[in-house]
């Protein structure tokens, strides 16, 4: 069976004006199966977000191929949707209008859009806030809108770029649990970038460790915890072992990064 997402030899170098070029990714190769929940961790600057953006179709790699269901990715498409770390909600639109954005851009009729939008409002627990504006919402609620917006077009693949990093610890835990519920029901493929080993281990089927810049796949760790996962699992010894395993791989890359930064 063709894996849902195939990344082969992805290489990308940033060439900013008046500055030295920065090699972001180098021959990164990765497969993700349909319906999998995969986390990507790595030291800062290793290219995790860049990789997501290539998947999203906003950036093209210098060399290498990125395929979705066998077809090469050439630009954004509605089978993939992203949830952004800084939320990215249009401040002049209501919550509902924000959620409808993807549908609107597809040309879907307003009445159909509204129906679907309200469905998602219900699912995201935002009932009563349809006509609020983003600046009136808390961080957690804003990200709920972001998630609802991404799910509105029913994409196959959900790309999440450190979506909970800007939230406080409690909200973060809550959102993680909700995300797992939604994923379990909707059976989407999720690629989740995070700095938190704990988050990665808790949420995913597999954790991919990316090396320090330029990024390539360093290690792939399968998480053998049963599903559905609950909070208590985070307190178990197995979980700690898993975390330790990820940490030991990651540690090497962090040390490499420090050396590279000249610290």
């Amino acid at each position, binding site marked *: 069976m063709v894996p849902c997402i195939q990344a082969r030899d992805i290489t990308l170098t940033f060439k900013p004006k008046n500055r030295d070029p920065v090699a972001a990714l180098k021959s990164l190769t990765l497969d993700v199966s349909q319906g999998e929940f995969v986390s990507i961790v790595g030291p800062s600057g290793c290219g995790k977000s860049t990789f997501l953006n290539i998947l999203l*179709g*906003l950036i093209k790699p210098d060399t290498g191929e990125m395929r979705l269901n066998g077809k090469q990715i050439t630009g954004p498409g509605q089978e993939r949707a992203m949830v952004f770390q800084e939320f*990215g909600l*249009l*401040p*002049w639109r209501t919550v509902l209008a924000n959620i409808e954005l993807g549908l609107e*851009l*597809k040309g879907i009729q307003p009445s159909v859009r509204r129906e679907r939008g309200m469905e998602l409002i219900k699912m995201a627990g935002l009932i009563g806030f349809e006509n609020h*504006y983003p*600046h009136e919402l808390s961080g957690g609620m804003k990200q709920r809108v972001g998630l609802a917006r991404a799910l509105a077009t029913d994409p196959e693949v959900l790309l999440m770029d450190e979506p909970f990093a800007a939230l406080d610890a409690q909200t973060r835990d809550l959102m993680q649990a909700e995300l797992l519920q939604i994923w379990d029901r909707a059976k989407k493929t999720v690629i989740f970038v995070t700095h938190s080993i704990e988050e990665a281990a808790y949420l995913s089927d597999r954790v991919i460790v990316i090396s320090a810049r330029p990024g390539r796949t360093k290690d792939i760790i399968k998480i053998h915890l049963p599903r559905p996962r609950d909070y208590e699992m985070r307190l178990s010894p197995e979980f700690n072992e898993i975390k330790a395993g990820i940490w030991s791989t990651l540690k090497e890359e962090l040390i490499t990064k420090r050396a590279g930064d000249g610290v």
Partner: protein
Amino acid sequence: MGFKEKYYEYQRPILGMASVVGLVILWELVFTYLIPLNPFFFTKPSLIAVAFREQIFGGSLWSDLVISSKAFISGFSLAIIVGIPIGAVMGWRRRVEYTLDPFLTALYASPLVALAPLLIVVLGVGLVPKVFLVFLLAVFPFIFNTAAGVRATDRLLINVVRSFGGREKDLYLKVIFPSTLPYIVAGARIAIGRGIVGILVGEFYAASEGIGFAISRFGDTYMLPEMFSAILVLMIVAVALTEGLRKLEVVLAPWRVGQEAR
């Protein structure tokens, strides 16, 4: 709510109104009972009120206002039509900004009103030089503010819309335009003041009608209450327009409240 709490909430408008009313009363009393009023030099509120009533109900004030407004609106609209697109292109394309900015800044910094006598000599007396003058003065805030607004567009939002399949026209309509609108309104607010200067310069200098002309004529003929009254009318119009736009800014961009100075 007790009296004290209510006072704190409405403190500003209460104090404001109190001081204005107080000033008017003081002014009237001083010049009625304390200092003799030299009618060639000063005037007092009661006389101003009389002149105001006369002008509203019979004088030429309305027709003067209409004439000045026509010129103002024409010039202002022209400034919008020309200024916003130029500003938008400048904000969107760095190269265009690099090319035009020094020239426009130099123009903005130079007192363009200094060209007014020349314009009047060229274009004659009447509507055209006034419109042109208003346009010259009002166009710059629109250019600069639109450019600033476009430049300040949140790149993240552009990426968001692109990621959901937005094309170029979607970017303009759904992100850049709404994001820039509050800046444009702020520019309009500044442009109003500058536009009024244009009208006044045009009318002080060589005109036979219009509110600027009226004010200078009242001055020449020492009709002080009428002069104060006309000035007051223009002040009210200016404040109404400016504060109205300020409120509009808040309505259009509630998420940016508290970020703009006057």
